[in-house]
């Protein structure tokens, strides 16, 4: 079997580049790629206050650690926000892990819950709306609360742990649903608004499996479990499809994401025409209609049930 370029026994094989790496050189590669992504995309500037969306899963935990390391070399502030959807047997475990890690790293941690902010837990929403795909409500609520809470903690940037796999899946989902306009605004909103906290995804070109390997190598505590509602999501089918393609044709995920980056300017030019943003009548947050999607969702899930 091939060895690492340093001669040591390898721990990892990168199939997309045919490279065997020992633990030391894998960590070095991972850190170098992370920093290059932050730098090349100008994700963090001096004196930024970066809020991490911290679920307690492997991606956000690795992101927390990597940003905490980066902070030693770059002057910026770091806080963490966890959105508690209220999913029994799942979220309370990951929140516990998230809290403990923030204490260990000295990072201020804020928790915002669906129950407090929207009036219902995700479990209650699923129970009341058994015909609906839970993720369609959850995604709207989480994104809204992450943005609003980032603003409330005075963050200038909102960092999420979306990795290469997430990006490739989202791109394919939007293509398969004929939603090119969503692709246009995948990396940033079409229209600027002071109420949008800029989102950054420092792990966006890091394969998900490598995030897990890094976490294991660095002894980052992980809660390895799946959201109980994930089985309803279209994303699961796309994940399987892309992973099968990646196994046969290594590098597929990188190519999917790079394709979008190539097309992004053209998509934004096409879909920015006529785009208008106003303020939601109820909450005042940016909205393309009278009522924003979050307020529509909250109204819907809190309706009187017959």
């Amino acid at each position: 079997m091939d060895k690492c370029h340093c001669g040591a026994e390898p721990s990892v094989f990168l199939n997309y580049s045919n490279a065997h790496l020992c633990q030391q050189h894998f960590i070095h590669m991972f850190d170098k790629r992370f920093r290059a992504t932050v730098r090349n995309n100008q994700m963090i500037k001096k004196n930024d206050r970066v809020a991490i969306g911290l679920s307690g899963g492997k991606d956000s935990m690795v992101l927390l650690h990597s940003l905490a390391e980066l902070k030693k070399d770059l002057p910026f502030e770091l806080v963490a926000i966890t959105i508690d959807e209220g999913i029994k047997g799942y979220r309370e475990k990951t929140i516990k892990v998230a809290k403990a890690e923030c204490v260990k790293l000295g990072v201020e941690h804020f928790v915002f819950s669906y129950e407090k902010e929207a009036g219902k837990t995700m479990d209650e929403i699923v129970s009341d709306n058994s015909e609906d795909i839970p993720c369609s409500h959850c995604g709207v609520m989480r994104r809204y609360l992450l943005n609003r809470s980032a603003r409330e903690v005075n963050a200038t940037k909102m960092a999420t742990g979306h990795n290469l796999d997430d990006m490739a899946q989202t791109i394919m989902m939007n293509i398969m649903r004929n939603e090119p306009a969503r692709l246009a605004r995948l990396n940033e909103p079409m229209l600027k608004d002071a109420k949008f906290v800029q989102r950054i995804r420092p792990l966006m070109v890091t394969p998900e499996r490598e995030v897990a390997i890094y976490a294991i190598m660095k002894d980052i505590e992980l809660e390895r479990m799946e959201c109980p509602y994930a089985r309803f999501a279209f994303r699961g089918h796309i994940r399987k499809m892309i992973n099968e393609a990646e196994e046969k044709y290594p590098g597929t995920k990188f190519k999917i994401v790079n394709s979008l980056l190539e097309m992004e300017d053209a998509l934004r030019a096409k879909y920015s025409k006529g785009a208008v943003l106003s303020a939601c009548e109820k909450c005042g947050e940016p909205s393309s209609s009278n009522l924003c999607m979050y307020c529509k969702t909250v109204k819907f899930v809190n309706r009187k049930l017959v």
Partner: protein
Amino acid sequence: MELVFDNQKMDKEFVGPISSLLRELKVMREEVVVKVNGKLAPETLKVGKNDSVEIIKVVFGG
């Protein structure tokens, strides 16, 4: 070979690269990491009867 997979420990007759073992078990390489004798191992590594192999699922929905 001792195999730990899906929280189950079992004895398995197998000699060959980890990649072939994963294919035999119908496990997607993209969703797991593998430890051999307690250490992370690349899927190109050949394993056999004296090895202890643990397949750990690391990709989940949600």
